């Protein structure tokens, strides 16, 4: 078994609003080696908040508590701001859903890459540029020189997302958190981007947390799948064993997807039971 990279035990995230306490994540535990772990759930299940908490990016007034939140021997529970800053980008980085909103629209792609690289490594501008171009090649961008000088609006969605992945991987992190990295892309482009992520993760021996609402995609891409519902983990499965899921929620989610080969009319719908969220 892989050495453990990240260990989370009983993670709880809550938001105090004017009227009540909203518990977004209620006791999530899992551990991650150098593997591809998928977190699947519907909107509001707490999957994105879990990802953000690992980077210490829970927005105010959110409160994060955990029995254990350990990344490679570093206790993130008691981490100072300085420790966080050293980890973010350098050892843990995150790819967001939509390149349109996560790239700076008024700075060329290349300069954003160089900036990310130089923030973590003491290199000259020239060296950083060479590394950036190499990274753009690594994410299979064909005209890396043109893209290097291009502004984000001059790129298609798939290209933008590749540039984002390049930016996140240029610092060679140990853990990549990808929050719905391909949801805004077409199916065929989606697969190309996934292939690039798969290659890089395998080559560099990184850990990957892949957050998605697409159960089918996650089961074909990841090694293990964590299924979340209402802020809790309902099931952890080997991706290949998804068909043998036992929890009624996972089964219901699988059942309500239409199939190309034909599916019953009407489609079975998910009957939510209150006992799942207790």
């Amino acid at each position, binding site marked *: 078994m892989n050495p453990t990279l990240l260990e989370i035990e009983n993670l709880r995230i809550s938001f105090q609003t004017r009227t009540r306490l909203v518990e977004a994540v209620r006791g999530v535990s899992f551990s991650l080696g150098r593997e591809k772990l998928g977190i699947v759930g519907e909107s509001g299940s707490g999957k994105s908040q879990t990802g953000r908490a690992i980077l210490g990016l829970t927005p105010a007034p959110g409160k994060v508590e955990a029995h254990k939140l350990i990344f490679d021997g570093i206790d993130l529970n008691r981490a100072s701001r300085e420790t966080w800053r050293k980890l973010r980008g350098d050892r843990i980085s995150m790819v967001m859903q939509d390149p349109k909103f996560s790239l700076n629209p008024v700075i060329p792609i290349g300069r954003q890459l160089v900036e990310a690289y130089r923030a973590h490594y003491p290199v000259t501008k020239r060296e950083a540029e060479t590394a950036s171009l190499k990274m753009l090649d690594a994410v299979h961008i064909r005209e890396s020189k043109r893209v290097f000088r291009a502004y984000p609006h001059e790129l298609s969605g798939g290209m933008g997302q590749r540039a984002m992945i390049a930016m996140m991987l240029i610092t060679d992190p140990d853990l990549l958190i990808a929050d719905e990295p391909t949801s805004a892309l077409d199916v065929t*482009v989606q697969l190309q981007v996934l292939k690039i992520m798969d290659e890089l993760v395998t080559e560099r021996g990184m850990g990957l947390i892949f957050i998605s609402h697409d159960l089918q995609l996650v089961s074909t891409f990841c090694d293990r799948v964590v299924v979340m519902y209402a802020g809790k983990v309902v099931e952890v499965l080997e991706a290949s064993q998804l068909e043998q899921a036992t929890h009624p929620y996972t089964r219901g989610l699988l059942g*309500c997807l239409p199939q190309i080969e034909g599916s019953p009319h009407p489609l079975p719908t998910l009957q939510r039971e209150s006992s799942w969220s207790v």
Partner: protein
Amino acid sequence: MTVPSLEISRLTVHFGSRENPVWAVENLDINIQKGESFGLVGESGSGKSTVLRAICGLVPIHNGKLRIDGEELKYPRSKSFYQRVQMVFQDPYGSLHPKHTVDRTLNDPLAIHKLDRREYRIGKALDEVGLDESFRFRYPHQLSGGQRQRIAIARALILQPKILLLDEPTSALDASIQAEVLNLLDRLKAERGLTYLMVSHDLAVVSHMCDRLLVMQFGRSVELLDKSSLRDQSPKQQYTMNLLEASKGFRKSSTEK
């Protein structure tokens, strides 16, 4: 041969300047029979949404004819056109006015078309999409994504159109909610004998909902398929095969291009 419910012949739409045109749709022919559901499939930029917008008169047509029940459409579209054809948009977060209550959203089309018994019609429209009276005076931000899309469908159906244009009606929704909305569309179609023209990038959804489908790429039609050849996965064109492969999920070897 019966007159098709919706007939598109040699439709061409372009954007941009005369010197540097962008051809969004080129020479597209589609015939849709009454009571049929027809799917348009393609990647972003293939022009599938532009076809729907052209039918509604939301983009200028460069060339070609559009007919509904054999009657040619004029520009601008007449009021009676919108009583026959209505559209449901992709994103229920963007397509409902954020500061209008559900009641006002549903009342507007009735007022524009000067229809009577509005109270009754609004109540019935809500009932048909499976929402009760308590939703009537809510604002969009007080509704979930699935509930919003139900309101968008109710708004489209309140004028009792015969043809519904659906632009990716479930792609912004969770899988479990998607199943509910698809079932709702299925039921409404059976009850009212509606004709659907549905745009989607999800072949599984199209296979579930549509009788025939057209695959588009770069604004042109690639292949016309019926449901059975989609289900047997026996398309004639390589591009359609690629789309089918891609929709099966990730495989290490299959993605090289």
